[in-house]
């Protein structure tokens, strides 16, 4: 499938792909924004949420923040390599980013298993419902991002579609930023 001419035009001066990624992020921001606003309204109306939040594992949450930030750094490196046309290197850095994503998911599932075992399931109360819902939606984005990065890395290794490395990087930073909002709201605000 060849690209139509439309895709190659750039009246704004920004490449079409990048423009589209920004629009994707804009709509994602509203989705997470809606969810977090709902959570905040509940949080402000229910002081007892603080007690529930005490049962979350802040250490592991902080660990995960660190893991995600590191993987974001790897994504920056991948972009740097791609800019200079070094596809295979970019692919390697992307694989490292995927590694970060997997580590994040592992820690997350360990955390959740523990919490569920202690009886803090999604149906326990509104706090835990929000906790699993928001973190779960975020985790879906992590999984989706990892899969997309895998595909792009496979292309990049053959020096194809290198501009996409930057695009997935932008997306990955967004996923990171969402977590940076989630972490204090769900873990720290006690």
């Amino acid at each position, binding site marked *: *499938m*060849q*690209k*139509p*001419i*439309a*895709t*190659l*035009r*750039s*009246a*704004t001066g*920004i490449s*079409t792909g990048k*423009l*589209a990624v920004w*629009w*994707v992020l*804009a*709509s*994602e*921001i*509203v*989705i*997470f*924004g*809606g*969810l977090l*606003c*709902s959570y905040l*309204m*509940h949080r402000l*109306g*229910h002081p007892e949420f603080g007690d529930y939040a005490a049962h979350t594992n802040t250490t592991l949450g902080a660990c995960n923040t660190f893991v995600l930030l590191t993987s974001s750094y790897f994504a920056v490196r991948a972009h740097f390599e791609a800019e200079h046309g070094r596809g295979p290197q970019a692919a390697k850095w992307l694989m490292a980013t995927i590694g970060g994503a997997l580590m994040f998911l592992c820690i997350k599932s360990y955390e959740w298993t523990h919490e569920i075992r202690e009886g803090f399931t*999604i*149906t326990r*109360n*509104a*706090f835990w*419902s*929000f906790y699993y*819902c928001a973190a779960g*939606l975020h985790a879906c984005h992590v999984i989706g991002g990892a899969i997309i990065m895998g595909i792009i890395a496979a292309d990049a290794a053959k020096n194809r579609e290198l501009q996409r490395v930057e695009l997935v990087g932008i997306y990955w930073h967004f996923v990171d930023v969402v977590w940076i909002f989630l972490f204090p709201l769900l873990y720290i605000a006690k």
Partner: protein
Amino acid sequence: MAQPAEEHGHSHEGHDHAHGDDHAHGDHGAGHGGHHEEGFVKKYLWSCDHKMIAKQYMFTGMFMGIIGGFFSYAFRMQMAYPGHNVPGFGVVSPNEYNALITNHGTIMIFWLAMPVLIAAFGNFLIPLMLGCDDMVFPRINRLSYQIFLLSALVLIASWFVPGGGFGGAWTAYPPLSAKAQYNLTPLGSTLWVIAVALEFVAFLLGGINFVTTAMNSRAPGMKMFDIPMVVWMIVIASILFMGSVGPLVAGAVMLVFDQTVGTGFFDPVRGGDPILWQHLFWFFGHPEVYVVLLPAVGIVAEIITVFSRKKLFAYRTVLYTAFGTGILSFFVWAHHQFIAGIDPRMANVFTATTVLISIPIAEMMFVYVATLYGGSIRLTTPMLWALAFIAEFMIGGVTGIFLGASGSDIYFHDTYFVLAHFHYTFVPIAVIAVFAGFTYWFPKMFGKMMNETLGKIHFWGTILPFNGVFIPLFITGMGGDHRRIYNYQNFPELATQELANLRQFATVSLLILLAFQFVFFINLIISLLNGKAAGNNPWRANTLEWTTVSPPPHGNFAQLPTCYRGPYEYSVPGREEDFWPQDQAT
């Protein structure tokens, strides 16, 4: 007039040019240079071509519209003749009645207005009007339609599961929608939410495509204010949609969890809040009105300028009012909740914003009326539809003030007055403007002219009964008829003969309206089979889609056009012709 043979020649020439000019088409061009040789599946079902996707959206939307129309027939018959066997449906029981009204509303907004106005017209017009060969992401475009089709199938499936279709109104307020114990449709309600969520995903993908295409892929020379109004409107609508739907997507996830897993997001007993859903829903739901309105007024702008041979009066003003409406529409949502138990002080703020939104909309209508001044008006079928849009939409607009003003909304909330009001906005949008656009662009879509006589019969047969349906409902609403009641026998004040007569009048009008839609389908079929060849530019219009052959081939233009001027340069003094296509250098 272009002869068929000539057209054929054109399209071949077109491909040759495309190959020569552009390497992006490159060797692949040879593959679909003979696009008529593509297999049936590739051409009609699995196509990436924006025009085919537009037609898929158009006809899927129309099909769903027929279902929605049938639903309205069934429940209107029940309203007029309660307890009678409705021919073709059977007796309407209370649960079926609820499912019918719920799905009628859902279909008409999400599966008719949205796909036809935004997706179908957007897909068809944006690349053609901007002078490019396709959407920027053709495969995402195809995916968008496929998800949309899937959502439609899920919705249809939801009517046939045990317990029947969801019956909690299209607003789906929890706790009713959240617990099977209350709505008694455990599967139907879940499938309903999933269908709506899938539909949102489809339009998010489509919207990203539209906005990016409009921003990046304009023909050389086309400046911001040279973009035809309908493209602007579809783009603004897409942005509005993207900006407002997010919270409801989150809300839909929460609602599905409430229904299936048993969480308590909207359950007050478990720390949730039922009002939260209303905020999430209407934060989307009110901008949604403008999401479907804006493309409709864009279509009307194209048509009235062409058929009055006039430049659009104050192009920039129209654009600014559209922006103004879009921005204001994010701050009016709580007028749906005046009596829903929100803090009464909030109502004052939302009354102000809601009433003020009348200003940009009124201004837009003034502009359209002013455009007619000094024109040379030709009442063709598309023009009749476009003018009817203005005349009828005005009724919807002014009756909205009664509902936006908190004091009078106390009485009118959830009565038939509300129902008549929003049908006076949605029918002009989703029916009148759609017919306007469809009859106007039909020659470009299919290369044939539609029959004018049948078109006019269909027009009058739709417009007159349409008023016959909803004007009586304003009156029953003022008399206190409230919505979603399947039978008034238990309410002595509503079971009066006068009100019953009005309801019957509305129902009979609806039957006439529906019967006249057959004229449209007959017209559609005979025009497709036997219509007069349209030629490139039958309406002698300026915008770029009319500079290519009808129907445009894969790749749209023989040579991608360059744009020299705005889209509405009609009757320019000193020119012999009364139109001046955007791609003509002189």
